[in-house]
């Protein structure tokens, strides 16, 4: 960066479910502003709101609580990584020995609440040169299943609650996510999704996972090479073929 280039103020977004915690951050950011040119571009009280607002405004840094309703900060960070210019994330947490240890091991920036002005200043000073946390690392931090799938569509990140998903079907390099209303495409591997959501989904075919709770029954039909059975799902008329290999594990589901 050359010396005569105009340095734009660092744009910052705040996510915390507690209003006083957000107010405290804004106070401290105002204090930092004296030495560090910055600008608060928005705030949100949960993951969905944050994603909606960050589709409209760009933030270079997101200060984010970990323990929040609806989805944790770590899951939100994974979804934010799908934005075209993912922000640098600094986690804030009141007390979480596990998370703090994990952050230290992976050199992820975090602030302990109550947040000190000095620590916030340091973290922000580093943020300009920092790079977003890799999705794989976030995945390691939160090995349990996500509560939402995120779909990147026309520059926006759309969240699909995992309990709305009826089936997941692999096609070429994408996976089709089917809900009662519509279909989405995500760029993930079906095998990894099977592992992550094994409690909720069952494999009925080499290329298809079905939500166990959505199975309403089976009917005869299907092509040769299949088991000859089709799965009927709640809310959609479409039926899906069960492969011969998976039939034994699937036939007892449904109507339970």
């Amino acid at each position, binding site marked *: 960066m050359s010396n005569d280039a105009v340095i734009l103020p660092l744009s910052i977004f705040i996510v915390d479910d507690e209003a*006083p*915690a957000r107010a*405290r951050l804004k*106070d401290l950011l105002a204090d930092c502003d004296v030495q560090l040119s910055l600008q608060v571009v928005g705030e949100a009280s949960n993951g969905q709101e944050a994603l909606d607002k960050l589709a409209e405004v760009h933030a270079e840094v997101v200060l984010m609580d970990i*323990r929040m*309703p609806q989805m944790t900060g770590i899951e939100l960070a994974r979804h934010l990584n799908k934005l075209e210019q993912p922000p640098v994330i600094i986690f804030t947490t*009141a007390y979480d020995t596990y998370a703090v240890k994990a952050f230290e091991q992976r050199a992820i920036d975090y602030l302990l*609440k*109550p947040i000190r002005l000095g620590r916030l200043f340091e973290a922000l000073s580093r943020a300009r040169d920092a790079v977003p946390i890799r999705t794989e690392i976030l995945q390691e931090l939160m090995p349990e299943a996500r509560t939402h799938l995120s779909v990147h569509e026309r520059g926006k990140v759309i969240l699909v*609650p995992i309990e709305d998903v009826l089936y997941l079907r692999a096609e070429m390099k994408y996976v089709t996510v089917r809900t009662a209303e519509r279909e989405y495409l995500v760029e993930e591997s079906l095998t990894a999704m099977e592992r992550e959501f094994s409690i909720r989904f069952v494999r009925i075919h080499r290329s298809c996972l079905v939500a166990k709770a959505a199975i309403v029954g089976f009917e005869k039909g299907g092509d040769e090479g299949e088991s000859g059975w089709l799965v009927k799902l709640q809310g959609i008329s479409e039926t899906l073929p069960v492969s011969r290999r998976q039939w034994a594990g699937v036939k007892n589901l449904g109507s339970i």
Partner: protein
Amino acid sequence: MSSINQIITPTLLPNFRNLGTVLRAILLVNAVALFVALTQADTFSDLLQQLLHGSALLQPVLLTSLLLLYALAPVFAKLPYWQATAAIVVLISLVTFGLDVMGGELFSSQSDVGSFRYIRHVLESAIVILLLLSYFRWRALALSPARQAARLQALQARIRPHFLFNSINAVLAIVRADPKRAETALEDMSDLFRMAMSEPHELVELSKEIELVRQYLALEQLRLGERLQVQWNTDKMPPDALIPPLVLQPLLENAVYHGIEPLTDGGIIEVRIYREDKELHLQVGNPVSPTGKPHNAGHKMALSNIRERLSLLFDVEADYQVEREAGYYSVHILIPYVTETL
């Protein structure tokens, strides 16, 4: 020295007014009777004969003694342990002798010669009561480290670090904008921690515990705002009841941490406190997020902690139930209604 002893020595004498003590006494005495009958019997019918014969004197003595011990419990509780023990042995011996004389020929056996039967019965009674008292003494000593450990564990569980740091953060947030409110919040916090860190009291006034809970909720309200709502049903609450300290507060803390916080729009916590005859009911219910899985470990620790303290204090007289329906979680605690310290 005496002051140190008062803290460390648990009450070695059992609480004769406790149902658990009474049940244990009845069971153990009858077990001894069965053992004696077994050693003397030759056949099965003889065993029944022996048992019936023994019971004729044993059961009246046992029941009268239990009644007298129940009535005189406060007197014995005031005496030093060994004096109380001696007094109890004398009392039981007198009861045995008195009933034995009143029963006359009813309690004698063919082999009895002269007045030896009275000496025999009194000595048997004295030995059994001494055995019983030693058992209760051993039990009190064996349980006391558990009591201390339970107290320590309780102290740790009561102050959830998450709550402490989040509250400080919330107070810091309003210090500039609303110094008055910040002051109140710090005062509430200090009351709460004074109680949590104080020497353990066996029982406190229910109204005090409720005040503490309200201070706790005021702090949480600061953070959670309108997401946290509490509905109190305390119309039928006895104003003079005593309860173990910090039984209600952890229940509310659980309801906030596991119930309200994970809900984006919050919810209503329902608290019901009422008396039914000789029982005091404490009920705390909260909505739970249908999708989020509860953090069970912390929850269970706080609850097993309460359960342990209740059973140490009230033995089988306390009851405790957890109900979990779709989207709703509630804890129901039942303890004896007491107005005087045990």
